[in-house]
């Protein structure tokens, strides 16, 4: 852990952007440390791509400023920012070979042919495509094209690497491979990276920190584990990971009455008044099923059973509007069948609630 790692590389301060009366971004602030990989996660229209494009200088912003390495780059055009960008698709120049594409940034900087060629070969090695240097983009698969795009962006030794949903256009299996390669290369080259995606599994699996965005605002930014276990808002809780929404009632005294149990309210839930009807957000792995019908267990009927490999997901009808999903290991789930009557209990010690 060198002290270099704790230096702030990028500082986005109070950025906003409006389209007429619609605010694509509101008062957005973010700091990125050198060598860190930060993901911005959220539904379409949440503003995550806007942040990336503003940082890259491709879109303008109103208010706020951007500091990179301590310098204010707010007015700087995109060709002077020295940031490497990888788009969702189609970004390779079709009239140049793979090697020529990778060299492009260096060619623009008037680097000599030999040096360019050497650097592009190095980078193609890094993405395992050095044998396709003379191919044209349309001869490559989607995954290969994105790897070339990555190499091309890294060739200019960028201050920040900007990835705009680079995996969205790829097949599921290829997506997993490429995201791991991106992470590997990012760590190897110690490049500060901003990764935008709507796929939470992607974001959670490769990032140092994940920022969840909604309607132009950053709701929470934390490491993946903290984000998952300690969501700060109901939106984050339901966007990250799967969650059940079970109707409940506030019991005063900071507790909530849900099903047949009384559980403490999570510190992060907003303050609520007694008797108020809310939804409690419970993760499937925080529910257990048994055939012990205690007083605080809720009886229910197993309606669906889905085998997911190591886990099995059971859908239980508790007499409320939608099925409640419970995850258990497939070993344990062997004892339970569709149509069984079961007893359900929540195992969290504190709950997050949201408005009805």
């Amino acid at each position, binding site marked *: 852990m060198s002290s270099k790692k704790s230096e702030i590389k990028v500082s986005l301060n109070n950025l906003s952007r409006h389209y007429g009366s619609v605010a694509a971004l509101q008062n957005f602030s973010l700091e990125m440390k050198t060598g860190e990989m930060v993901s911005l996660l959220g539904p379409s229209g949440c503003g995550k791509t806007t942040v990336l494009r503003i940082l890259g*200088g*491709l*879109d*303008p*912003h109103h208010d706020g400023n951007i500091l990179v390495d301590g310098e204010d780059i707010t*007015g*700087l*055009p*995109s*060709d002077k920012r020295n940031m490497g960008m990888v788009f969702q698709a189609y970004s390779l120049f079709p009239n140049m070979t793979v090697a020529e594409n990778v060299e492009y940034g260096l060619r623009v900087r008037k680097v000599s042919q030999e040096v360019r060629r050497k650097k592009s070969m190095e980078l193609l090695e890094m993405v395992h495509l050095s044998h396709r240097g003379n191919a044209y983009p349309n001869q490559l698969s989607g995954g290969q094209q994105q790897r070339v795009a990555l190499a091309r962006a890294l060739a200019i030794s960028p201050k920040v690497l900007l990835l705009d949903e680079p995996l969205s256009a790829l097949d599921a299996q290829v997506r997993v491979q490429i995201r791991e390669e991106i992470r590997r290369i990012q760590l190897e080259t110690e490049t500060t990276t901003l990764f935008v995606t709507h796929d939470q599994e992607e974001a959670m699996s490769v990032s140092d920190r994940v920022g969840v965005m909604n309607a132009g605002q950053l709701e929470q930014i934390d490491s993946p584990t903290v984000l998952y276990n300690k969501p700060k808002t109901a939106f984050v809780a339901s966007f990250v990971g799967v969650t059940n929404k079970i109707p409940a009632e506030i019991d005063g005294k900071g507790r909530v009455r849900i099903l047949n149990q009384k559980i403490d309210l999570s510190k992060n839930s907003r303050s609520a008044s007694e008797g108020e009807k809310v939804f409690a957000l419970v993760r499937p792995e925080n529910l257990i099923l048994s055939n012990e019908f205690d007083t605080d267990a809720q009886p229910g009927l197993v309606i669906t059973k889905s085998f997911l490999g190591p886990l099995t997901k059971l859908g239980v009808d508790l007499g409320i509007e939608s099925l409640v999903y419970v995850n258990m290991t497939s070993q344990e789930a062997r004892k339970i069948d569709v149509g069984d009557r079961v007893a359900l209990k929540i195992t969290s010690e504190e709950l997050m609630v949201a408005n009805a």
Partner: protein
Amino acid sequence: MGAGTMKSRIFSGTRYLILGLGLVFFIAPVASAIEFSLRSYGNKGHTMANYSWIFQQEDFFTNITISLKLAVLSAVITVVTVVPAVTFLHLEGQRYKRIFEFLAILPLVVPVVSLAIGAQKAMPLFIQNSQYELAFFYVVIAIPYTFQSLNVGLSSIPLKTLVEASRSLGASFAKTVTSVIVPAIRSAINAAVFLAVTLSFGEFTLTSLLHWETFPVWITRVSQGNVLGSIALSMFSLIGAWTLLILVQSAQNVQKNRRSKSQVEEMEEATA
């Protein structure tokens, strides 16, 4: 505020300049020709007399009628020949598709003048004596466009899947043709008909070299000796053609927007 704003400043100025110049280049001849056509002999100011002269010509209606008849005939022949052929090539005859695509381009390669010379001497007398031979030649000249239009139109719909779905639901081949295939390619057929009609109406080269008189040929003949009248006639025919084209294209656009919904409805009805 980033490179984006700077670029658009430089570009939008030139954009209006270029597009403005372009507009002037196209409007100038039209405007001045219209002005010309409204002149009266002896510089007595402007008048519509030249336009009424058009309609006073005895052959005006005869020739418009002939051109109309030929246009309709060409449209019918096109539909009867090209539509089944292209549909077949997309269904069962896929291996012949490339050959026919190549053949369909050939009339484009052959200048109409050359075809005219060939047509002069090649046709047996009974054909040479009927003005309706022109319709068949118009169809041939239009083939590159009509074939292409139908080809592209058919490529854009999942024809094979539609036919297979219809058959598997129990429809006979005849019912499939009328209820599934024809509605699906209706807009492509319309486009092909439109192309055939436009071409027939405007065709001059072959018609005049074969010594037949249709509306375009008549325009030339009747224009000798009356400069103002000929200009009026030309403007009438040009602007008339343009107006019709614009109307048809706008109607097509409106239909295209409505089509997506009705296509689904039609399919549901047909297979009910």
